[in-house]
């Protein structure tokens, strides 16, 4: 009876418990990793994870494509940067204000753009990214032009700012865990199922009462807001931003993170973000070949593990167990 109620408790709160479990695993990293540089890489993983979780809702769940999310990431970073440096807005306020503005931008962009799908949608979002990047480079007066913005303040509460990689680590990973919880919640809701349904078959989804058009626009807007929050976190963490960071290659990197982690696998998104972010740092002297390697990795993942790392590895393990014969299954059944 108690084990049954405990099982029910675990079932009901499996998202929360998993996130807590992951947090416990991640929490001691600053104690283990001595070098601030290593911690810095992990911090970038957290920033990218926020963006990739949102993008996975759009690409992995709703089955759409965007090659322009670095634009929303950049708008978030520049929004936060300009609001804090030129207007003196505190970072904690700049982040939500910017996210709301970027969500509105995504709504305006999404309403006409999301009439497209497939290659056309990819081209349209790519074009949007190029336009936004162009604005970052050439609107000197506001964006600082090619040399970007400097002196963007860190997050702080009542004069106590969060300096140092360790404090930033907890802040950024805290944000990533919140993003993870929110998106896992979302995909378990009726609206999340509606997205999965429209990704499979728009006609059938509409026949079940799913508002396909509204769903696509909403999830595009939401994923842009996630990207904007990622951008704000990035700006306040780095203190300096330049337009190069927000070009189309970053957009493609985000898509690679989604694909490597697994389309529709939110936990995989963390793995994808970690893998692709760390890769150039692990490559050392071969860093110059980063772009080639990225391309190669995507091809290999799509060929070998088309559902991404996490889902793919789980599947492989299951197949192995099944192949080992019935004893494994029998044990589960009798146990």
């Amino acid at each position, binding site marked *: 009876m108690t084990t049954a109620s405990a099982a029910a408790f675990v079932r009901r709160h499996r998202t929360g418990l998993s996130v807590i479990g992951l947090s416990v695993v991640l929490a001691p990293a600053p104690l283990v990793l001595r070098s601030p540089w290593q911690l810095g890489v992990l911090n970038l993983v957290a920033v990218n994870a926020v963006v990739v979780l949102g993008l996975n809702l759009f690409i992995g769940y709703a089955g759409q494509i965007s090659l322009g999310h670095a634009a929303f990431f950049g708008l978030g970073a520049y929004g936060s940067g300009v609001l804090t440096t030129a207007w003196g807005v505190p970072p904690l306020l700049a982040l939500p204000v910017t996210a709301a503005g970027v969500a509105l931008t995504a709504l305006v962009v999404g309403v006409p753009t999301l009439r497209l799908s497939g290659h056309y949608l990819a081209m349209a979002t790519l074009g949007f990214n190029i336009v936004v990047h162009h604005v970052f480079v050439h609107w000197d007066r506001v964006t600082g032009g090619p040399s970007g913005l400097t002196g963007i303040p860190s997050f702080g509460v009542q004069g106590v700012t969060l300096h140092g990689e360790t404090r930033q680590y907890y802040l950024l990973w805290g944000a990533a865990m919140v993003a993870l919880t929110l998106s896992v919640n979302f995909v378990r809701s*009726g609206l999340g199922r509606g997205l999965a*349904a429209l990704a499979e078959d728009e*006609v059938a*989804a509409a026949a*079940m009462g799913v508002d396909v058009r509204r769903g696509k626009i909403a999830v595009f807007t939401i994923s842009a807001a996630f990207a904007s929050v990622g951008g704000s976190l990035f700006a306040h963490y780095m203190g300096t931003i330049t337009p190069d960071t927000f070009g189309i290659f970053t957009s493609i990197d985000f898509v690679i993170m989604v694909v490597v982690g697994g389309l529709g696998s939110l936990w995989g998104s963390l793995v994808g973000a970690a893998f692709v972010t760390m890769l150039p740092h692990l490559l050392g002297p071969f860093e110059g070949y980063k772009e080639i390697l990225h391309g190669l990795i995507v091809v290999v993942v799509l060929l070998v593990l088309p559902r991404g790392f996490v889902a793919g590895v789980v599947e492989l393990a299951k197949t192995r167990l099944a192949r080992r014969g019935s004893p494994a299954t029998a044990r589960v059944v009798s146990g």
Partner: protein
Amino acid sequence: MSTRGADQSLLRTSGLTKHFGGLPALEGVGFSAERGQVTALIGPNGAGKTTFINCLTGILRPDRGSMVFDGRELSGLPPHRIARLGIARTFQNLRLFSGLSVLDNVLCGLSARAGDSYLEAFLRTPGLRHRERRLWLTALETLDVFGLADRASVPADALSYGEKKRLDLARAFVSSPKLVLLDEPVAGLNPDETDRVGALIRQMCRGGATLVLVEHDMDLVMSVSDQVVVLDGGRRIAAGSPEDVRCNPLVLEAYLGKISATA
């Protein structure tokens, strides 16, 4: 009864017309479905049956004519709005969400009841948890009725063809819709599976469902229908009880005649 019944039709179309290019797919079709009855829509291939269903469900926009459902005009409404008025359908070519589990497929049939608040969904509020639990129970009950309870966690793709057909039915019936449009529910099934689906359809009728049945299987049509409407070349050529239609010379010529010629 018969005069008042005409006003009480759950669904009534008149002059429904749809052309593809210059070709008429529907030409002034009048049709009605009475509450609690099974109205069959039959006709040879290309008669316009699926076009008719696609117009009713908002997938196609008719050129002319009216479609009144439960006192509301359907023309111009988008498909999801029509679904939310209480019209569910199955698909001739299935259109299951093949990557989703069987249970999730049926839960998708309950989309209208799942809530529309994104905030609630992201925060997974207690209200949403309760609602999800109720939907989950409803979905499992329906899977049980359609003989798929033990397949709930399997991807829809992994089902046999007969099971897929039943899942398509379960997905349509789970929301207890006011009207269900069945587009060839037994096409491609073997006799045993056909009997099974036939029994399920009868069971749903006894439960008070109003059905429009598009089907080529005449045994099924004749045994479950209250009314039969015959289309040929986009026009309604006959309507009446199964017995009337069976003896109608126009129908014999257009439809049953072909069957007897091939038999």
